[in-house]
């Protein structure tokens, strides 16, 4: 969708030529979120702004949807690219509705259609149109303003969205909320997003691909998991942090780390049956489920080996469960909190689906290092 080919920007300054972006090559697929990451002055913002020609490249090519953007008038080009900046830049002299309608108006939309669009967009960002359409930016909170900023960028339904540290000025709690909202919206709209950030956690959370810049050069362009597992240089290893493997926990869903054949036993079955199943599968414990299939406790091999009777009479309570759509960071955190080595997982209906174990998680994270010469 977006292809950068040897993109270069050199600025002439009194102290000589500064190369802000040096032969950048990138290929971002349709519907992906690509986060440009790096310390300040690394060239990530310059690269972003060359895409909508706010900065004219010195050399190199930019293709959007296969089209060479050099052949398009910059102003026309920008109208087909959504743009969100850190300072939000909502125009204070215009109402929320007028702000959202700016690009549709530039494109010559019928005003009725543009207004309808503004109203629909406000609804998707969880702001009541009846309440907010006629408000001015100064009458909104920072978080609301940034939501409107995103809505404005989406107004004319552009296929590409450029975001320059869009959530950087929002307090941490609201930032998480807005990031989640944005991801939810993105799953529905599937825009191709280029996103500048200096926050590795934000990048890991949002990105399909991360591009790390250093002094104008693209150091590594990879999936978040690969970047964290196999940083290409010591600079990147330092940048992503010594806890980079822990950060990978966030990228894996409980569903994907769950043991394939997690043994279970109904609370009415006999203890001997439970022991047999544990032996068969090679586990020291087994989850007890009720008639519908909800987790109803567990029994431990040591505790029940010599017992008889239905399992239900010997079961111990489960300290906690974890949902399939949560990430491993939440699962591990729950394990640490309850001092346990495994957790039962439940699906949306609360039915037992399997379990995750500390050992299983460790093996899963370690997989990528085996055969790759160990961790860097």
């Amino acid at each position, binding site marked *: 969708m977006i292809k950068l080919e040897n993109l270069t920007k050199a600025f002439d300054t009194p102290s000589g030529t500064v190369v802000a972006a040096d032969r950048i090559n990138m290929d971002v697929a349709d519907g992906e979120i690509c986060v440009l990451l790096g310390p300040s002055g690394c060239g990530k913002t310059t690269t972003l702004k060359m895409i*909508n020609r*706010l900065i004219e490249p010195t050399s190199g090519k930019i293709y959007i949807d296969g089209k060479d953007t050099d052949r398009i008038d910059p*102003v*026309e*080009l*920008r*109208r*087909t690219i959504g*743009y969100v*900046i850190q*300072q*939000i*830049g*909502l*125009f*204070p*002299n*215009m*109402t929320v509705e007028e702000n959202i309608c*700016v*690009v549709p108006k*530039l494109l010559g939309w019928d005003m009725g259609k543009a207004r309808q669009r503004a109203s629909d967009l406000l609804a998707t960002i969880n702001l009541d149109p009846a309440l907010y359409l006629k408000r*001015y*930016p*100064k009458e909104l909170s920072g978080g609301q303003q940034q939501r409107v900023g995103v809505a*404005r*960028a989406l107004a004319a339904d552009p296929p590409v969205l*450029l975001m320059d540290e869009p959530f950087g000025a929002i307090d941490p709690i609201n930032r998480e909320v807005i990031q989640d909202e944005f991801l939810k919206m993105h799953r529905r709209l599937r825009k191709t997003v280029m996103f500048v950030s200096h926050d590795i956690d934000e990048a890991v959370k949002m990105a399909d691909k991360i591009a790390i810049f250093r002094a104008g050069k693209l150091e590594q362009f990879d999936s978040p998991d690969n970047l964290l597992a196999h940083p290409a240089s010591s600079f990147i290893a330092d940048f992503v942090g010594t806890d980079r493997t822990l950060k990978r926990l966030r990228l894996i869903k409980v569903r994907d780390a769950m043991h394939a054949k997690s043994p279970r036993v109904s609370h009415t079955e006999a203890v001997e049956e439970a022991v047999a199943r544990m032996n068969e599968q090679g586990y020291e414990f087994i989850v007890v489920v009720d008639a519908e299939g909800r987790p109803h406790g567990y029994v431990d091999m040591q505790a029940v080996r010599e017992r008889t009777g239905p399992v239900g009479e010997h079961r111990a309570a489960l300290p906690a469960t974890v949902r399939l759509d949560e990430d491993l960071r939440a699962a591990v955190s729950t394990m640490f909190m309850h001092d346990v080595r495994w957790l039962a997982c439940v699906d949306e209906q609360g039915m037992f689906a399997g379990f995750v174990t500390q050992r299983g998680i460790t093996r899963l994270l370690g997989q990528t290092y085996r055969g790759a010469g160990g961790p860097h």
Partner: protein
Amino acid sequence: MAIRAVMSGKWLPAISLVAAFALGVVAQRGGLIDAIAKYRGDIAFLSQQHMKLVAISGGLAIAVGVPLGLWLSRPAMRRSAETIMQALNLGSTIPTLAVLALAMSLLGIGTVPAIFGLWVASMLPIVRNTYAGMLGVPAHFVEAATGMGMRPAQILSGVEFPNALYVTFAGIRTALAINVGTAPLAFLIGGGGLGELIFTGIDLNEPGMMLAGAIPTALLAVLVDFAVGALAYWVVPRGVNPLR
């Protein structure tokens, strides 16, 4: 208690009304009202002339000052703008009377040099405020507008100028207040206006005549200030208008 109530301002409108009434009674008794009323015809005619001077010179000042301020704020002018503003600031230190005298020496006597002098005197605050207002518009508004695909003229008229409008109006208000207050001097170079009653009244030591010129001038100044204030209130968009 009563004094505290007075000090708290609760009774202020009532008290000022009583004071004004008392002042009116004193003036009436002293024959001052009659003395002023004698010039009713002159007041009507000269007020009209006065307002014409203000309207033409003020209108010209706005018509030239605002575009000049906008032009100076353009990126292409960034380097020379400060120098030009310095020169204009220097110009505004020249007393208006001197400006009128210079205008007279160039253009002779009559309405034209008077209008020219008033125009010069009242244009400077307009240019200054328009320029300052434009510079005060945060750069990220322009960046957002450019990034969305607005053309420079659209950014100027749709984003920059509306956001500078409140400050611009403050300049216009100041300029017109200066203009109305300076307009009586126009009489000195043959421009007419209410200055005729004021200066002649002073020369003849005739308070009635002097006040016949001074009171309408004062009222006119208050009226113009109110009118510009009201206009600013309604013209400046609510989102950038601290008064709304």
